């Protein structure tokens, strides 16, 4: 079968499954509350429009995707502005949209602390990483880390780091997706997870980076438009005076004036700084984000794309803050959004239907009616799809480009074979993600995103930074330091309260802080430095001698300019 036929068959399968699920949902709705029926249908219809549009794009991208550069890097033909939107799309997950606005709804100010942490990594990406990555690499950050270091060991290390980040992030996204779609669409958890998995396989396996990028761009525009409308509607109500909005929120919220100041989210300074470091430097080590810098033509476009992305993400977080406060003022006095007990009382925070993460969704209904609620639900679904597609592509690339082409075939594999393996990996990763999503359904996976950032900050980022900036870095140093960072980050998370006590059921945690990054990053950097210093091998001399050529290229782009344009 040709790829086009397979694509057709898969689209047909998805459409049939979705229709069947629509039917199943309709059957279930007969017993359910009638009021919710109309809302869910508008969401499903709008989501279908999104899916059809993105499948159309995937189709076109599949026709144009021939070489490895097309598949992994969209042929280097994405502009700075498009890439900025796509990066923002990759980064603005449903978790950050619903989670942060829900956190603001519940705690006020504390929600802002999280969004700031997620944002401040971007300047670091720009100042230290973006241009150099574009100048040195081809498709993955492993290309950069192994530029002068021993190819086989460093690729194995960075592919392991990539796959670990992708796996943890994917589990969190899949479980979140299943739960969310269950609430928004009235769909079975397993069906939701299967649809997400099937669609992400189609996007990635057929459309590669080009389709994935356009899915991100469309989703980013929809999400920003929807969130802008909500924030605008909220501010309009208060004559565009934030002070009036805050005053109304303080008057409404059960915690009163304390929502305007830091609460208990940040328990102790060590945890706070550790989380801060994980968010800040983890961003600079996320493989699906780093991959985006290879889709633009040159260093100039790479840095422009970070500027646009940072602006869009900053704007988005300010919107979520307004949306959270809007939800306080619009929802808390309206019992119809809450689980009300027999005597008519309700908890204004935890009693919110579907939990506090649904604050933005209920606000959509409050400001825009059921049609807009459907739109926001569809956007939330689209958001999850886009993020998991980006992750899947990063994981598939690590398998085919880093592990297969460079380590196993030692550069002797043909481009076609490599791309074919990448598509196959995307399918396998998609299936594994569906299975993991199913297995972890009833587990608390909130710590997984933190773990993904901790691993990115403690393995990927130190190896990348040290290989580019410190002449003394050797293959052995990078390898040992990187693996120490990875292992210590995972071990400390397992021994922390979130896993050791809340998931595994032990009485007392062994690692006392919520986030390991402060310690695991130190271990990684110290490890790379120490084991490089101690390394007196032939290979080490070779690694260090090759630094100058790498330095010239990373600083100027000389020798790289047209590396994968064609």
């Amino acid at each position, binding site marked *: 079968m040709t790829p086009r036929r397979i694509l057709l068959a898969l689209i047909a399968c998805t459409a049939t499954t979705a229709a069947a699920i629509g039917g199943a949902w309709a059957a279930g709705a007969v017993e359910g509350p009638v009021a919710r029926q109309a809302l869910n249908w508008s969401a499903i219809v709008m989501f279908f429009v999104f899916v059809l549009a993105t499948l159309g794009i995937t189709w076109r991208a599949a026709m144009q995707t021939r070489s490895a550069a097309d598949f992994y890097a969209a042929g280097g033909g994405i502009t700075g502005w498009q890439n900025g939107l796509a990066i923002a799309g990759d980064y603005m997950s449903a978790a950050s949209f619903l989670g942060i606005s829900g956190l603001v709804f519940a705690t006020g*100010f504390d929600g*802002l*602390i999280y*969004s*700031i*942490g997620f*944002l*401040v990594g*971007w*300047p*670091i990406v*720009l*100042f*230290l990483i973006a*241009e150099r990555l574009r100048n040195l690499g081809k498709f993955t950050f492993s290309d950069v880390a192994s530029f002068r270091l021993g190819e086989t060991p460093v690729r194995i290390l960075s592919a392991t780091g990539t796959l670990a980040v992708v796996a943890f992030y994917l589990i969190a996204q899949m479980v979140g997706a299943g739960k969310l779609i269950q609430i928004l669409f009235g769909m079975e958890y397993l069906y939701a997870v299967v649809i997400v998995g099937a669609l992400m396989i189609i996007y990635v396996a057929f459309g590669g980076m080009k389709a994935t990028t356009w899915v991100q761009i469309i989703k980013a525009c929809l999400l920003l438009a929807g969130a802008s409308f909500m924030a605008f509607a909220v501010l309009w109500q208060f004559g565009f005076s*934030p*002070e009036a909005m*805050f*005053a109304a929120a*303080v008057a409404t919220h059960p915690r009163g*004036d304390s929502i*305007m*100041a*830091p609460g208990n989210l*940040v328990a*102790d*300074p060590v945890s*706070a*700084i550790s989380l*801060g470091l994980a968010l*800040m430097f983890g961003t600079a080590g996320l493989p699906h984000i780093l991959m985006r810098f290879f889709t633009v033509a040159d260093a*100039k476009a790479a*840095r*422009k794309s*970070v*500027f646009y992305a*940072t*602006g869009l993400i*900053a704007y988005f*977080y*300010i919107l979520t*803050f307004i949306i959270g406060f809007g939800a306080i003022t619009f929802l808390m006095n309206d019992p119809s959004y809450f689980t009300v007990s027999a005597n008519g009382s309700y908890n204004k925070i935890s009693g919110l239907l579907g939990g506090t993460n649904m604050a933005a969704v209920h606000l959509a209904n409050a400001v825009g009616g059921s049609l807009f609620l459907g739109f926001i639900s569809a956007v939330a679904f689209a958001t999850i799809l886009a993020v998991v597609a980006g992750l899947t592509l990063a994981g598939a690339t690590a398998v085919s480009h880093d592990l297969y082409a460079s380590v196993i075939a030692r550069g002797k594999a043909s481009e076609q074979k490599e791309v074919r393996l990448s598509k196959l990996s995307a399918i396998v990763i998609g299936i594994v993600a569906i299975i993991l999503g199913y297995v972890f359904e009833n587990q608390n996976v909130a710590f997984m995103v933190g773990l993904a950032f901790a691993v990115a900050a403690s393995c990927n980022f130190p190896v990348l930074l040290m290989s580019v900036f410190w002449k003394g870095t050797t293959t052995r140093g990078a390898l040992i330091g990187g693996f120490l960072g990875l292992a210590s980050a995972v071990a400390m998370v397992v021994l922390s309260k979130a896993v050791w006590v809340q998931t595994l059921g032990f009485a007392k945690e062994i690692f006392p802080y919520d986030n390991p990054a402060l310690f695991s990053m130190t271990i990684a950097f110290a490890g790379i430095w120490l084991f490089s210093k101690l390394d007196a091998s032939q290979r080490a001399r070779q690694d260090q001698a090759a630094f*100058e*050529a790498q*330095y*010239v290229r990373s*600083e*100027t*782009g*000389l*020798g790289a300019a047209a590396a994968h344009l064609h």
Partner: protein
Amino acid sequence: MTQGDYARVLQHPRFRELTRERSKFATALSIAILAIYLGFILLVAFAKGLLAVKIGDGVTSLGIVLGIGVILAAWLLTGIYVRRANGRFDALTSDLVREIER
């Protein structure tokens, strides 16, 4: 490019000017964003009372103003870097490339 070419670039005054200026600039901006962010986190951890102080007679607190300020500062710093890099650093780089290829 050959090994000799790289050595020539490394010795080139334009290259030295470019890397010295850029690394100084990037380091300064990185320290700035780290200081702004860690400063904010330390205030959250140690000076909750200070962040709760009201602005004027309203309910808006200093913490909210500073928090939004950190978000805007992060974007502003990327803007400052991109402006300098697209102007000065790119000009230096293209001068260098032209002279090397001559």
